[in-house]
């Protein structure tokens, strides 16, 4: 796999994004340590330039690192399984990568989430010249560094492990999980049911909260939607994997989230999990904007607008997710008169 051109494309994107991020983070260190907006000395002027460069570099780095993460995702979901003996989809690739693959994905996600949070704060900070969020923004930008380094480290480990991997059987991995859980099938079933109902109820609650946020962005807590959104994302993922995906595969039980990314299912996984990612990211944006609104009245106006924008984003993403996740199930029910498990 190390010779696969997509692997090189991934590393080029990650290295270029990493270079931009490192350049920006170095400048942000100076801003974080010595930012003194009341002064007009040469050092502060230099820091002002650094803050501006760091902001530009951060935005570009976020774009490049997102591109790298997407290339990695495309590799795992669509491309690299053809290089792994026995792999049919991303499950086989992750199986070949061992725990390093999952760790790499988690750290990539956390890094991008932190940089997204920084982007939200920077977007608010730039609205007013007082620069009240400049130091916080610099701190947040730098705090992504360890996660990014870990993401790169585990990506390297994972890709190197695949080079010497024996034959895997990703379908077996999926079915083994089903079979090993057979004894606990009742518990599994009830977990799936709980997740399904929580995802429906949580989704409805989140939608209602977002409608309120659009109408009254200056009222209510920002933490509540973020907590609900994060919990909802877990529940929705489990419910989709255990229940919703079956209507895509049209088999009774094939709880594999990675098969959804394959062209056989029109790459639906990209859109479905993309919707979940948008909900989580925008809910964090709401939380950050709400905190900013409360702490810095000078930014109340821009923060309110950001909350409204994020709320619209969440509503759109949730509608898209619901249509894609439940659409095939409803179509099946309408066509056959029963659900896939036979219940009317």
């Amino acid at each position, binding site marked *: 796999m*190390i*010779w696969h051109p*997509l692997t*090189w494309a991934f590393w*080029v994107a990650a290295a270029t994004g990493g270079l931009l991020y490192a350049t920006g983070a170095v400048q942000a260190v100076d801003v974080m340590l010595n930012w003194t907006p009341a002064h007009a000395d040469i050092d502060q002027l230099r820091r002002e330039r650094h803050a501006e460069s760091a902001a*530009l570099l951060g935005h*570009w780095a976020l774009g*490049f690192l997102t591109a790298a993460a997407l290339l990695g995702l495309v590799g795992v979901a669509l491309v690299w399984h053809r*290089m792994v003996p026995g792999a049919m989809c991303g499950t086989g690739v992750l199986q070949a990568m061992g725990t390093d693959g999952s760790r790499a994905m988690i750290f990539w996600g956390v890094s991008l989430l932190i940089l997204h949070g920084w982007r939200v704060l920077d977007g608010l900070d730039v609205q007013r010249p007082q620069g009240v969020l400049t130091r916080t923004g610099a701190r947040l930008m730098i705090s992504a560094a360890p996660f990014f380094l870990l993401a790169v480290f585990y990506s390297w480990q994972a890709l190197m492990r695949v080079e010497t991997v024996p034959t895997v059987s990703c379908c077996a991995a999926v079915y083994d999980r089903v079979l090993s859980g057979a004894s606990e099938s009742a518990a599994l079933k009830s977990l799936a049911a709980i997740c399904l109902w929580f995802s429906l109820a949580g989704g409805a609650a989140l939608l209602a909260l977002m409608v309120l946020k659009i109408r009254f962005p200056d009222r209510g807590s920002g933490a509540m939607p973020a907590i609900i959104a994060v919990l909802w994302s877990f529940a929705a993922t489990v419910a989709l994997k255990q229940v919703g995906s079956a209507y895509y595969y049209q088999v009774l039980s094939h709880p594999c989230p990675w098969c959804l990314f394959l062209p056989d299912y029109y790459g639906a996984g990209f859109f479905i999990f993309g919707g979940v990612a948008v909900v989580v990211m925008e809910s964090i944006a709401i939380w950050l904007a709400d905190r900013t609104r409360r702490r810095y009245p000078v930014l109340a106006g821009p923060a309110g607008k950001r909350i409204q924008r994020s709320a619209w984003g969440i509503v759109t993403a949730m509608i898209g997710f619901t249509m894609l996740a439940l659409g095939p199930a409803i179509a099946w029910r309408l066509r056959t008169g029963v659900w896939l498990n036979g219940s009317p």
Partner: protein
Amino acid sequence: MMPGTRYPPMVIWAARDIQRHCGRSMLLFACLASLVFLTAMALLFSQALDATWERLMDQAPDLVVRRIDGGGWAPLPVDVAMACAKKIPGVIDPTPRLWGVVPGPEGPVTVVASIAVVPESMLKGIPPPSAGQAVVGQGVARALSGGRLSLGSNHSVTVSVIHTFPADTGLATHDLVWMTPDDARPLLGLVPGQASDLAVHLFRREEERAIQADLAAAFPWPVRITDRSTSALNHHTRAVRSGGIAVVAGIPALLALLLIITGTVVDNTARQAYWGLLKSMGWTTADMVRLQVSRAMIVGIPAVVLGLASAYAAVFYPPAAGITAFWVTGGQHLPALTLVSSGAAMVMIEIAAMVGLPFLAAVFLTTLRAADGSPWTLLQADPWN
């Protein structure tokens, strides 16, 4: 609509800036186009090779069963083998194959004989060989003299060539000599009732590995079973590896060249005063980055498209394709390749990541370095002072 209003002013001004520094922009264009051409050619070639293999391997039997003994490969009794294979659930259509590699006039050729009758729809004007006759592939036909072909060393057989397989079947028939089973058996060392091996198709391809143990146990003699997916994996691995090696070998040097040229073009100290003047008129550093990125796009997009189109022509259009094949394979003759749209899309993504992203980053970083100063300091770098 008034002319000009359809483009954003920043983009028009970027084009005006290109006009002002025409030579440098041409240099950048040439460098970028050649870089994309070289990268894309290697990637498209490996992608096309891979797609071609995948498409053809999809037609191959799922399993091939060969009998082995202490001396190596041994002939397979057809009736026994068929009966054993049919006993295994999931096996469909086991077919004995009569084939082998024998010395030809200019190197080894693949001799095949079809036990079953080839359907008329397949033949499309190709006459099936009778005794003493053969139909040969394009590669073999080149070595013919007087329409007769002598094969084998110990048991030599001479056949008259009655037809040549069409060029568009070359991917399967290039080195082929198709003759009757009776002509082929002496060449291959087989007696009637024996076959070289047994091709097996499965009801569910996913069971390819799972069924091998049952199948091996069903035969009364030791057998060696090869599966389609292992061969396909080998082909795929070789294709992408060779593409990757080509990229890794050539690209870093060219990329470094691109970065240097981009830096030279964008970061010109004589332009610092220009940046300072723009800042004094209300341009921000982000505006300047936008201007330079627009400029890079106006030069870069046509260069990338030209590089891709040239690479496409070099891989798929003779005689350029022949030169490319000669260059990248070291003289091997390669038949026409095919490409799938997903493969082409993947090459586009890889090119965008491997060339586009570093190029944009170079433009961005050099612009930032040049324009990230106080406007007064930048203005001082100017001849008007």
